[in-house]
């Protein structure tokens, strides 16, 4: 009886695992098909359709590649602002994406747009994906704690040279990763002008004097917010107020 029960449980577990694997596999195949369909639309120069499909793909399973392709499609469809934003987001997720970087460079060169200069810790933060810094920081922190506190104090192990060295290295890594995480934090204020001819206003009101007209794709750095307006710094037109609906931030959800 006992043997028969064990056999039944094992069979049930195997069956459940199979069903779950099949569900995941079919879902993954569906996603892949959607992505490929979007690529096919792009290849047939249906850029508007491709942009729509890549946008749907991003809603379902956001990835650096989907953002990059969305940027290409938007650029080809004649929307430089959304295209530049999409490539920036692709690089936000995967800073090693050479194609997104090349597209961004090309677009900025073509549209005569200047890149917003980053501060040194922000430049440092571009070495790794945005989320990697936080994980590295907490990993370094917990490793430091484990080697310096848990091992000798909780577990009562004797402190050795290698554990101490490893703890020092982990602490140094923590300091470095905190710098990178700070860069990521300040880079969340970076954004892109969504539509061309966006007025840069002197004061945060609808009827304010227009200091300049910002082109689509112009990079901005937001300082602070008042109502529906952000006070931003631009690379070409100085500082001023821009209406919220005219901007998109790189790290904000939605597209």
């Amino acid at each position: 009886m006992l043997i028969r029960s064990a056999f039944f449980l094992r069979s049930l577990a195997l069956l459940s695992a199979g069903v779950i694997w099949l569900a995941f596999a079919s879902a993954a195949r569906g996603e892949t098909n959607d992505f490929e369909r979007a690529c096919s639309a792009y290849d047939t120069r249906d850029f508007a359709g491709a942009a729509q499909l890549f946008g749907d793909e991003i809603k379902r399973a956001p990835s650096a590649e989907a953002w990059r392709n969305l940027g290409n499609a938007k650029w080809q469809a004649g929307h430089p602002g959304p295209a530049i934003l999409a490539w920036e987001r692709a690089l936000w997720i995967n800073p090693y994406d050479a194609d997104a970087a090349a597209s961004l460079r090309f677009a900025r060169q073509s549209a005569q747009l200047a890149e917003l200069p980053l501060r040194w810790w922000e430049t440092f933060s571009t070495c790794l994906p945005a989320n990697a810094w936080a994980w590295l920081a907490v990993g370094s922190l917990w490793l430091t704690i484990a080697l310096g506190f848990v091992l000798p104090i909780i577990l009562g192990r004797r402190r050795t040279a290698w554990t101490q060295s490893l703890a020092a290295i982990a602490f140094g890594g923590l300091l470095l990763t905190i710098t990178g995480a700070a860069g990521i934090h300040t880079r969340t204020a970076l954004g892109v002008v969504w539509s061309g001819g966006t007025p840069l206003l002197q004061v945060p009101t609808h009827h304010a004097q227009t200091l300049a007209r910002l082109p689509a794709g112009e990079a901005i750095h937001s300082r602070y917010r008042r109502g529906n307006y952000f006070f931003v710094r631009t690379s070409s037109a100085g500082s001023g107020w821009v209406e919220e609906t005219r901007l998109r931030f790189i790290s904000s959800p939605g597209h």
Partner: protein
Amino acid sequence: MNCLRQSPILTAGIFLLAGASFAQQNSNAPLDATMTQLLRQAAAESELVADAGFDPAVVAVGEPSLYRVIVTAAPEAVDLPEKIPAPDELQLQKEGVGSSFVSKGPTSQYRTTFNYRVTARTAGTFTIESFGANVGAWRVGVPPRTLKVVAAGSPEARRPSSLRLEVPAGDFFVGQAIRAQIVALDPGDSSVLGLVEPKALGNAFIFDRVSGSQRRDLREDNGRSVSAMVEEVIAIPIREGRQAFSAQAFVELRPTSDSQTIKLRGYRPFLEAAPVNIVVRHLPGDALPGFTGLIGQFQPPSPRPASREVHAGDPFDLPIVIQGTGNLGRVIPPPITNAPGWRVVPTSSHDNQSLTAGLDGSNVFHYTLIPLHPGMTATPRIPFSYFDPQQNSYVDFTIPSIPILVLRSAGAGTTVPDTNTTSVIHNASARRTPEGLGNLARRPAHFAASLVPMQQRPAFWWSQLLLAIGLAGWYGWSRRRRFLAAHPEVVRMARARRELRWQDRRRHRAAAERDAVAYARAAVASLRVACAPHLSARPEALVCDDVLRALPPEEQNGETGKLLRQLFLFADELAFKDKSPHPETLWSLQPALETLMAELRRRLC
């Protein structure tokens, strides 16, 4: 210069004079009293001279002559008498007033001319006597001048020099450039040498001078061919309807020995032309695309790019040359509104200063185009049109596409090695798009659930807090474990308390059920458990003496000791004798026993 150094008021006055005069020319607002006073004082302190003269000094009966009074002061400072003291035979009619600066060495002198048209009814010699003119607080005398009037047809009679404005016949359109000519007719003695500061006047026009256009020419005047100085001016009407415009100028004259003419050094007679009326019409409403106000007759535009190759993203200069006759100098380049694949830098008309003549010639527009994608083969077509006033219709003037080759930009191309181009193009998974953008990804690989960085998500911090709490708990448990290892009596006490609570429940249950046997066994077990930690012994190994040893000596021999012995005796009788003891004995011990148990429990804490 010394005069200026010595008199600061004079210096200030001259500047004020100039400024005020400029303001007066541009506005009809009256000067205020203080300004007028300053001007008058400044004018008076400078070299004040008044002169007069007839032009010509000999005239036929009925022919006009000009009587000019010139004062070396600003017009605002000069007050001439309302009535000039002229003989009754002369009819004076006041005409215009003109003023100019004349350079006098290191300084300048203001000169104002008052013109009067003089007509004599009879022949004779007529003198306008000397009279005074007020200039600020000063008074200056105008010398007497004599006009000789001879019979008509007399060879002695001369005609006055005159100014005429010549405009082509016909109707004109708003915005059309009209070539007008300011003509100074010579009186017949070739005394007119040139025109100085010729100026066209009219509120409904914009005027452009044509520099270098002054020339000597021949004109018909009352059936005679006379010499004339001609200067061209471009008049552009800005208002429709019947519009009038006129002209004025100073005339450079040959010096003469005539005593009746003005002898001031550098004197130039001031002439005015009679106004000319023209009819100005609106342009027809059916303008073609790209019409920006170009009116005239033109040859087809010719784009002349310096190069036929450009890299994507680089600016491409597209010069457009327009030749013909019309308002070339003021035309606005047509905007490029539909140029997919191109970024167009707005072209400013101020950039086009290449007009070679006022009306005839050529102009060049420079469009700056930036191709966005390599592989494009032609510039965008630029809709353009102009209005031909002769045909009274618009003419399509569209700038055609120019074949060019747009190469891949240097920045984007570096990502693909040239040696591997073929394989890259044939590899569908890593194909570079022909537009020069980065590759299209064929499969997603780097997923990110959210763009919000991890450190800005609450779940991240909650998970870290949970870890910290777990670590703190682990640390606390570890410390407790080590403490208990170092103090086993604490463990024994805790275990005894736990065991004692269980035995208490057994005992109370037995008492409630009046089960003397169970109560006795539970009471003995309770005593053993309560005393075992103090003796470092296992509870079940203890006997009555052991339990007594755990108590203070005074209790061992007192009531407590007696109670314990009775209880253990009762329990032994239950365990080892066939005959059960009387339960009432046990129940009589219960209150004292519970008190003892409470005391022992207290000692365990």
